[in-house]
């Protein structure tokens, strides 16, 4: 088991690169919203937001360097959130 006091230090370069990537993805989200792709607009926006969320989790929240238990706990949470959202959408879809 890892020591509780283990800490990770990032170089500024990595943090700035992540920040720039997030800003670029925000720009892409805005541009994508102006292109009419019908229902796909929602999925594209969600896809870009998921990538942005992943960057934040991996780097700003240090998930990239955490142990297996925390990663599994996190994935479990995402799984349940996915179930909750998809089941609700899916009820609306079949009404």
């Amino acid at each position, binding site marked *: *088991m890892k020591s509780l006091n283990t800490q990770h230090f990032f170089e500024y370069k990595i943090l700035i690169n992540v920040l720039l990537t997030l800003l670029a993805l925000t720009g892409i989200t805005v541009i994508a919203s102006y292109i009419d792709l019908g229902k796909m607009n929602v999925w594209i926006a969600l896809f870009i937001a998921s990538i942005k969320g992943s960057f934040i989790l991996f780097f700003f929240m240090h998930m990239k360097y955490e142990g297996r238990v925390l990663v599994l706990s996190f994935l*479990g949470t995402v799984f*349940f959130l996915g179930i909750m959202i998809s*089941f*609700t959408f*899916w*009820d*609306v879809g*079949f009404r």
Partner: protein
Amino acid sequence: MEVVNSFFVTPSSSRLKGIWSWLLTTDHKRIGLMYLYSILFWFLLAVLLGGFIRLELMFPGETFISPEVYNSLFTLHGVIMIFLFIIPALPAVFGNFFLPIQIGTDDVFFPKLNLLSWYLYMAGGIIAVISLFSDGFPDTGWTFYVPFSISTNTNVSTAVFAAFVLGMASMLTGLNFITTIHRMRKKNMGWMQIPLFTWSLYATSWVQLLATPVVSITLLLVMIERYIGVGLFDPAKGGDPILYQHLFWMYSHPAVYIMILPGMGVISEIIPVFSRKSIFGYKAIVASSMAIAVAGSLVWAHHMYTSGMSDTAVFVFSLLTFVVAIPSAIKVFSWVATLYKGSIQMAPPLFLSLCFIYLFSVGGLTGLVLGAAGTDIYVHDTHFVVAHFHFTMFGGTGFAFFAALYYWWPKMFGRMYDFKKAYIGAILLTGGFMFHYVPMFILGLQGMPRRYFDYLPQYAKGNFFAGFGAAFMIIGIFLLVINLLLTLRKPMDASSDPWGGTTLEWQTPSPPPLHNFVKEPVVLDYPYDFTGVVKKYAKNTKGE
């Protein structure tokens, strides 16, 4: 065993004295007892409110309260019982007290967060009381369904905020327990050596942590709708009222597993101890606890068959609901198989556990009537539903709460209680329970709706009989509580292991010292190995 000071006389910070040694304590045992006192207060209050509801319904027409007060009474009864009693009762009281001891450690991982949880719980309770005395009693029922909860002029916002704060307390407790189990177990205690009560708390904590934020956000949305009127649930503004029901039940159905899972854990502890026999299917019970936590989170919409949800969703949620019955049944069969050919020592905790198995099984089986979409549409929102969930929640969790109280009371307070009063109380409670709720099943099948102030003449007989059952039940509850409170007047007389248990809490004095153990506890290879206990009792009977 050498004489040691219990946690009652050793505050967790030695500079704290008197009431401050309780209010600022970080000792998990003291926090557990503070929860016990406050939870008992709310429980007895809600029992009395339930008694008033039943008294009003004993006779047709207005008996002694107006329809408005009746609406408030059933709302309050539900809110207090659900948010202030059943959800926190077992994890907050017995989980706090026994989880660290069962895994051989001295406290939870975040002791200060633990105290904060208690303060949040108390704050939630006080806010709930404030909601009663300002701008009219809330009258929505504990479900706060839109559009009524948004449009009614009563004080829904404060009641909703109270539930929000109580949810925070629940989440912090769950987070604390998960971290404690992962990080603070005794080094030689593997996952398959953890006692089943702790396992059940582990499964419960995950549900608390994952599902509670959903209802917290949902309740905030109700407040936003009341104050700003965005239209999230209003079809005229592009919203969807059924979305509220989805969001509410995404938490509130898993919440019934938050309520029942620790109860199942308690029963899994009691049955082997009083059967003097290893529990049947330890691994199956562990797996079923986790399976209930997972499958129970996928079935929320079975509360919504008549709400206007799509037929496909009704079909799938009905199917999934039947899946949850499997792990629940695994537990019931395992308990019964443990009793089979056991050397049964009857005592009040076992008696209450046996009542639990019977009542919970009836509750579970009638749940299948409601889980099947076809039959649910017939009995939806009738007294059948009221009877069903009282069988599972009170016959289940409520009886498990009393079983836990009677099982662990000698350990917590170091005092043994009077068995005769305990049996009389338990018989009155169980008998009254049957007389109270069985007529409700019949009334429901006949079509009497729930939450109605008055009823048609054909329902008079059932309601009249149910009233008598309620009276016996309330007397039984008070007798069970008073019997325990009476022990506090006498000196401590309980041994460290009065029942012959094998889990670690029975290796420490009653009541335990501040840091839980006087000497290093011995972790058994298998937590329910009764070989030593049987030998010890055999020696005693031979007079050796």
